[in-house]
């Protein structure tokens, strides 16, 4: 703990101003008298402490990280370096347009690239992450119905396989949600959908390929059914990596989409964020896009705000969203170019299908064995859980001992004992082969020494943690002793 290194009166003196001027004109009752409880340490102690902490993490730069739905691919270093050029880092968000043409050119180019690669009519870059993009998208659906006086639409449909942010976003926009089941083949149950549709339907939120890792084959039919019922279609772009340059959400009939640039466009996840969740829309939703947006008249770039776009759902962040993430995604898009975008989906799909095939050969059960994998796929360990009493969590924890970050576990909720595995296009064949060997080894261990797996991990900085105690005896901040 950083506070363990703290000693009263110690400081990293070189980093702060040399003096502390007297406060003039601030009434005494407004001034702080208590000392803020921050650590008092030297610069080197800080550097050592945080370097050591970093070494307790798995990351893409250090480990294979096949976390399904999260697209943990290589984050090119150029994206960081070029988004951090001094002129870009020091630009104030409220700098006038005269001092923003270079920055705005990057954003405008990115808006255009995202528009074309998704087949949408217009794009706003401002949402800060996927979930905020979802919020913006559903808010636009609401604004559209409201503008038409169509106000009995109170329900958003979400498949049972949907990510938790989907229903949560719909509720934040004032909607109720209704779940649509997934069929045995992994596609949405179209008959159940037909029954659920009605005059109360505002829209449906779909991920395609879905979170079970297969392409929704009847998407055109679904789109016309929903449109006929007067609803709109929302596309959760978390899985865009699977189809980049192959098929576009706009062509599938979606009215609004978000993209997770921190997935498909390879900006880093940073231990939890930041991301960026731009939204794209069809023509009829264009007036409602969140502001600000960048406009270009062929000569100059300028910001569009509430004044220029009176029907906008409004502003979602104080400035222009996660600008630095957008710049990283822009650099990535330029490095890839159009050929590179096709290759993203091609090689992520090749890797996923290869890995799935090899794991099935090694005796693991695919959740949807008859289906082609998209860029990810699901194994179900229910056989192992039943016969050996070793469950998915145990497998996941044991993988850490072998130096692989565990895939996504227990999501989507409808597949029991599932592992959602997404290798991404940046992994080489030998890395995938190695993963198969690890899975094979753990399976053998589960058969012969189940306790070894059930107690795993054994080599991490800590063993399995007591989550119940964490929630029951809340310790959420270090408090000074006295």
């Amino acid at each position: 703990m950083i506070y363990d290194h703290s000693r009263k009166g110690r400081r990293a003196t070189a980093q702060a101003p040399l003096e502390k001027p007297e406060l003039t004109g601030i009434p005494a009752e407004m001034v702080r008298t208590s000392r803020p409880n921050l650590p008092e340490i030297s610069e080197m102690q800080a550097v050592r402490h945080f370097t050591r902490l970093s070494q307790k993490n798995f990351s893409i730069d250090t480990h294979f990280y096949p976390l399904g739905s999260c697209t943990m691919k290589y984050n090119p270093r150029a994206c960081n370096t070029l988004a951090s050029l001094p002129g870009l880092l020091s630009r104030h968000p409220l700098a006038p347009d005269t001092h923003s043409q270079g920055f705005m050119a990057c954003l405008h180019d990115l808006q255009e690239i995202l528009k074309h690669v998704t087949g949408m009519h217009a794009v706003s870059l401002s949402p800060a992450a996927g979930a905020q993009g979802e919020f913006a998208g559903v808010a636009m659906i609401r604004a559209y119905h409201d503008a038409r006086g169509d106000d009995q639409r109170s329900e958003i449909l979400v498949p049972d396989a949907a990510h938790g942010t989907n229903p949560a976003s719909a509720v934040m926009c004032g909607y109720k949600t209704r779940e649509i089941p997934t069929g045995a083949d992994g596609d949405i149950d179209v008959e159940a959908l037909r029954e659920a549709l009605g005059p109360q339907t505002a829209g449906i939120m779909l991920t395609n390929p879905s979170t079970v890792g297969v392409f929704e084959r009847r998407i055109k039919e679904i789109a016309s059914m929903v449109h006929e019922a007067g609803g709109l279609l929302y596309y959760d772009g978390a899985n865009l990596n699977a189809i980049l340059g192959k098929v576009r959400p706009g062509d599938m009939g979606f009215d609004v989409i978000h993209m997770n640039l921190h997935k498909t466009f390879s900006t880093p996840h940073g231990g939890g964020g930041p991301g960026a969740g731009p939204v794209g829309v069809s023509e009829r939703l264009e007036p409602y896009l969140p502001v600000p947006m960048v406009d270009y008249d062929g000569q100059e770039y300028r910001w569009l705000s509430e004044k220029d776009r009176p029907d906008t759902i409004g502003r979602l962040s104080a400035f222009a969203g996660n600008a630095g993430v957008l710049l990283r995604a822009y650099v990535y898009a330029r490095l890839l170019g159009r050929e590179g975008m096709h290759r993203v989906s091609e090689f992520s799909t090749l890797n996923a299908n290869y890995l799935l095939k090899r794991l099935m050969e090694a005796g693991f059960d695919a959740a949807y064995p008859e289906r082609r994998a998209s860029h990810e796929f699901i194994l179900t360990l229910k056989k192992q859980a039943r016969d050996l009493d070793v469950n998915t969590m145990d497998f996941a924890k044991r993988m850490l001992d072998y130096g692989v970050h565990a895939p996504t576990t227990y999501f989507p909720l409808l597949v029991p004992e599932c592992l959602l595995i997404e290798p991404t296009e940046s992994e080489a064949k030998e890395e995938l082969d190695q993963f198969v060997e690890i899975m094979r080894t753990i399976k053998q261990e589960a058969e012969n020494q189940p306790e070894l797996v059930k107690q795993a991990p054994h080599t991490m900085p800590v063993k399995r943690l007591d989550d119940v105690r964490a929630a029951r005896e809340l310790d959420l901040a270090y408090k000074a002793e006295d």
Partner: protein
Amino acid sequence: MPFIPHTEDDIQEMLATIGVESIDDLFDEIPTELRCGELQEIPPGLPEMEVASLMQSRARTDGEPLCFIGAGAYDHHIPAAVWELTTRGEFYTAYTPYQAEASQGTLQLLYEFQSMMTGLTAMDVSNASLYDGASALAEAVLMAVRGNRKSKSKRILLPANLHPHYRRVARSIVRNQKIELVEVAYDKSTGQVDMADLEKHAGEDYAALVIPQPNFFGVLEQTDLLTDWAHQNGMLAIAVVNPLAMSLLKPAGEWGEQGADICCGEGQPLGAPLASGGPYFGFLCCTDKLVRQMPGRIIGKTVDMDGKPGYALTLQAREQHIRRSKATSNICTNQGLMVTAATIHMAIMGAEGLQRVAATSHANTQKLSQALSSLPGVEPLFSGAVFHEQVMKLPIETATALGMLASDNVLGGFNLQDDYPELGDAVLVCATELRSDDDIENYRGKLEQVIQSQAQTPSQ
């Protein structure tokens, strides 16, 4: 192939294993009529050196003007170690710490962040970040509506002297849940919340009163008075604060008799570069009592099977991945890396360092205000004490003045005309610890020229 390691042999072996002829066969479940073509509109790929030269030229285009704009984003020194460490791959390229045993670095760091934020704000608990200050306010509003059991209304009092963008963001985020944000006027002479206007709402049912410190005009509020007023009227007190100011000013947890209930704000002054507005991070702290209403990730300290201390995500039953439509918020990805920077920043600066930065920024803004006031027709508009920003009245049209200054490479402040037309020609200026005496004199000299040139131009 950029970022793809496959050799031709790899590809052939892999296809053979799968049992297909070509990669394209793997897309055979996608209806052919849906497949898109070449995407000609997207430019072809460029090598790193060409993208580098493009980005360098774009960065140069924007120059590096001398900046006196604050208005929610502040130009502070960031110790070199902060981003050197933050961009280590182990922090930079990790995901949300779902596998706790393989993420103790991030988890412990977040716990330390929560500790430092509670230390700075004197609140009980902190979450692990929200998107930015404005969306943090929106979440605080939602939290207050859920958390104030005494209130049946979905109404919140929001002062007009809070950042205009924050007010708009809060409105766009909460309005579909039929929450009403009711504006409280500010006092035209002090720039503080107008107590008389506030009194009109006494005894009415509101879930919370929002209290900025400092407010958008840089002016300091009577936070004790406002907090007590809120509590006496059955409302929660939501503090919206500059975290740097908290090192020097009475922290939200100590306001009035009981302290604020929720404290949120923009974390940018703690180690995030200006960078065109993001990524920054929103922070959200509250009292113990409200912790289960908190949105976002929270890290708790616990023990492992051997009794060794460790850290884990906790109270996850509030979150979307468990609770889905009943979650406290839809937030999933947050601003983890920015919080990494902020934690390292606070650790290196310490309380003393932050206080020095805050006090120097305060002093520099006073110097700036005095220097500009030496010009005819230029003076502070409000009488209230300020932290590190001040509204200055101008004798000429603000847009013209700022435009001319900008063409001379000085960004003279934020034009208040659009958001506060009633103030006439007025500009919000800020001088952080990075603006030297020479910079201030440079601004003063150039503004003097601009004013003179305008005085000579006959008005149409």
